């Protein structure tokens, strides 16, 4: 395995925050029918950390991630990416923030079908009109093992290869933070493991910050820290997780 060069830009002393949620609540509906998707959530995401967010369905983990990424608004509290309070940004500014400072990896449908893998990878930078760092790009592509497939369209790639393209895209512009929503949900165990490995390496060797929503304890075990959500609240944290400790943590939520 090659060692990736650390990026000079974003590696921070640990303790610098990549993103935070401060007293975040998200309420659907009103009065008697009000539903608290998120209820007074406080959580920080330090730079250079790999965090997993877990919880049963309805726990608000996806809602939290959407709010952190600026895709959804909060009813109360603040969301910060770096030092920027997202509620102060217009829709246009939020879009640009996503383009320049946030990376996304979804469970499926990550890629634009009419673009090649290469074009998908450089898409956010192309949209910004910024020329990508070719050396960095080549390294990322080589690392995920896609060098011979970059000219292909998504329809010509396997599911695992498509996810690797998605990971490359997220890494290529070296964003402040990457959000991954069940990135291995559609993949078999071996392929999924490879993807998670890339993600962990990106964090360890490049100082990338990644926040991953998952329901799979095995996937969560790749992270540095697991945040547990239930009924819209943070109910627990686990550092240096292993599949077993994660599993126990989840079981405890059920009680």
């Amino acid at each position, binding site marked *: 395995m090659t060692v990736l060069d650390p990026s000079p830009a974003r590696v921070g002393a640990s303790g610098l925050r990549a993103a935070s949620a401060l007293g975040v609540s998200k309420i659907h509906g009103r009065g008697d029918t009000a539903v608290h998707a998120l209820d007074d959530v406080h959580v920080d995401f330090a730079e250079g950390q790999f965090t997993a967010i877990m919880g049963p369905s309805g726990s608000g983990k996806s809602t939290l991630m*959407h709010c952190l*990424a600026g*895709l*959804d608004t909060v009813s109360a509290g603040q969301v910060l990416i770096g030092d920027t309070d997202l509620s102060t940004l217009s*829709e*246009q500014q939020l*879009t*640009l923030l*996503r*383009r*320049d400072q946030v990376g*996304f990896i*979804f469970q499926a*449908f*990550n890629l*634009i*079908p*009419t*673009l090649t893998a290469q*074009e998908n990878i450089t*898409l*956010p930078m*192309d*949209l*910004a*009109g910024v020329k990508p760092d070719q050396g960095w790009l080549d390294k990322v592509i080589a690392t995920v093992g896609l060098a011979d497939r970059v000219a292909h369209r998504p329809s010509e790639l396997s599911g695992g290869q498509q996810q690797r393209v998605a990971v490359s*895209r997220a890494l290529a512009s070296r964003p402040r933070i990457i959000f991954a929503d069940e990135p291995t949900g559609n993949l078999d165990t071996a392929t999924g493991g490879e993807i998670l490995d890339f993600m962990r390496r990106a964090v360890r060797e490049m100082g990338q910050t990644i926040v991953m929503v998952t329901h799979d304890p095995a996937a969560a075990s790749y992270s540095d820290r697991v945040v547990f959500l239930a009924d819209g609240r943070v109910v627990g944290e686990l550092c240096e997780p292993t599949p077993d400790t994660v599993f126990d943590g989840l079981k405890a939520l059920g009680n």
Partner: protein
Amino acid sequence: MIRLTIRNIVAHKARLAMTTLAVVLGVSFVVASFVLSDGLRSTFNDLSEEITAGIDLEVRPTSDFGEPLPLDIALVDEIAALDGVNNAVGFVEADENSVQPVKADGTTISTTGPPQLMGGWIDDPALSSFTIVDGTAPDELGEFSMDRDAAARNGFVVGQSYDLITPLGVMEGFDLVATTSFGDNNTTVGATLMHVSLDQAQTLFGTAGTVDSIGVDAEPAADLTAVTGDIQSLVGNTGAEVIDNATLTAEQQAEFNEGITLVGNVLLGFAIVSLFVSIFIIYNTFAIVLGQRIREMALLRAIGAEARQLRRSVLGEALAVGAVASAIGLGTGIALAQGLTALFAALGAELPSYPVILGPRTIVIAVVLGVGATVASSILPARAAASVPPIAGMRDGATVSGSTRRRLGFGILLLTAGLTTGSYALFGPSLPTLGLVAALGSAAVAVFVGITLTSRVVARPLTAVLGWPLGQMMGPVGDLATGNAGRNPRRTATTAAALMVGLSLVTTGYVVGESVKSSVGQLLDESISADYFIGDSNESGFSAAVADDLLSSGQFAALTGERVDEVRIGSRVSELSAVDLEALDQMIDLDVRAGFIPDRDATNVIVVHQDLAAELGVEVGDAIAVEFVSGFTASLEVAAIRANGAMFPRPLVPDQVFDDAGASTTDVFVAAVLPDGVTTEQVAPLIEELQATYPQISIDTPSEVKDQVNSEIDGALLVLNALLALAVIIALIGIANTLALSVYERTRELGLLRAVGMTRRQTRRMLRWEAVLVALFGAALGVATGVVFGWGAVSALPDDTFGATVTVPVVQLGVLVALATVATLVAAWLPARRAGRLNVLDAISQ
């Protein structure tokens, strides 16, 4: 199943709205053309009855060909004296526009609109619907009357004197002694109706001692058959006929209806073009919408619905859309008829007011066409959707695809068949008009459908080429737009095809128009060396004094008038031109292939075109027998055979022949050439004086003639484009519609793009240009086919007149494509804006 059908319609009514609009527009045009023609027909039928009211019988001369000789005026009294006849009067009527009053300001009433008519005044109210409004009926020479509305419109005042332009020349000092009314309401439909005394009529435009026809008012209890018999024996063997009121009215109505039916059929033709374009839109919509509902279809099949039931449900949706659209179209069609009337008025052809008639025939045809078009276009998508296997509902990414190779083969077949039929119709044996139109129409349809089926093969590469500059200019947004435009070649081809049809026909018009313009220009420049062309607006002829005046001035090197009359040669009736052959030869290159153009003094000779010579089987030196209307027969020796029939196309004879035969004495045309070195400035005073003396003639130089031809062609193209505008609008609606539907389809993908940082503006721009690329694809196909059609049409025209050169007006076509681009940007604006407004979160969660 019916409940499901109705629920589906309601749920998807937004998506079906644009389809409905396309059908509404097509049906409206059909309805409008019927409303217009039915209304006009009703107006003119009523008018016909008014015109013939009171005339129980009419006696008129007949002839085998040409203008029949008038009746002896003595007959009038003889008929009046018959049993059962109350009164008989003689009618003397001038040809349309042959007598024109000169307004106080010296100008004449325009002859492009309703006609100016003059006749002898009839006193008997039983036989004439004209009444005096103000003044007294014209009785003496030098008096005339005018209908009150025409007088008011043009500033003619009772008691004043005016000049009249007549076939004999300008007659000064005619007193307007009365204004009249035709019937109670003076329904003139815009025409100018004038009268003079019978004696005056005979001198001005008739023949002394004769009348054109005789009107008979029978006694109330008379037996018309007996009266007819009596009259018949009176006129004996003069070849006159006696017709009753019903026949008279029917003839008048038929005369009016000829023009109305033509206009109605032309409008209907364009309406069908619009409906044809609608079919592309409807097919596309159903194909896309059903493609989005595959999972639902598969589920239904899985739980036990038969393919037949699914098919019927889809056809039921189409039926409902078609019915609603047709119903709306009936209403909007009436509005469109008003619009067309205004359009005609704006183009100079003022139509009379007409009642709005929505006859049963109109309703039935509109509904049949509207529903038929909608249902027919949905048959293929319905079949494809219904044949979805149940398993498709459980798998991701299932799509419906027809057998591509089969459609491609069918498309090539259609294309070949269309081109062959078209070539045959244009270049093969000549067909009657109806057959020609039908053949060319079906050939065009086959070509269009064939191209739609086959163009998908080039959709991706062509849009990639067209979109390359976009990528250069706009980066990833442009590349995405280009990729999107070509990613579904079949859909791109079908959407673009709708625009192709309209633009193709517009292009054909431009190519034919430009080609005719340059052919005529070439003709005027190369084959003719005349300096002046003199004609009048309606070929009814002007006095030979015009040519005489020019000749006696001595300023011209060569000069000839042209007199025209009908003759019979063998069994065919045709026309001859009497000219100064020697002078003509100096001005025009007749391209003589055999013999020589005889000099001025030659008698009883004829010059014919080689086509006619071949038809009659004659050569130089042979004699041709020619019979004139008067009965005079001449034997004319073929002096020369020519190949150029562009100018003076009729067989040519010297003036002497017409003089001997007593044929027409008026000129319809004069051509004159100045000697070398003499400029038009030098003769300008002479020309001006001539124009002032004869206001009704038009004196033009070759460049003025060219300008007139050009502006007439431009006018025709304007009308053509106005009628095709609707088809183009429907196509643009289709492009917007396809865009909107595909945005819905790609919601998740658009959400992804927005999530990774594409701004709203970038999204909107991408979608607008995606639409533009599809439109450009259609425009490219349209212009290409239009050029081919135009080239074919021009090549089929006779070489020596309009078909000499094929000119492709590149600049105008460029402007057309640019306009199509702008129009597409406008059409795509709303769907693109809505796409930009998509909630990112909702989109990616789909």
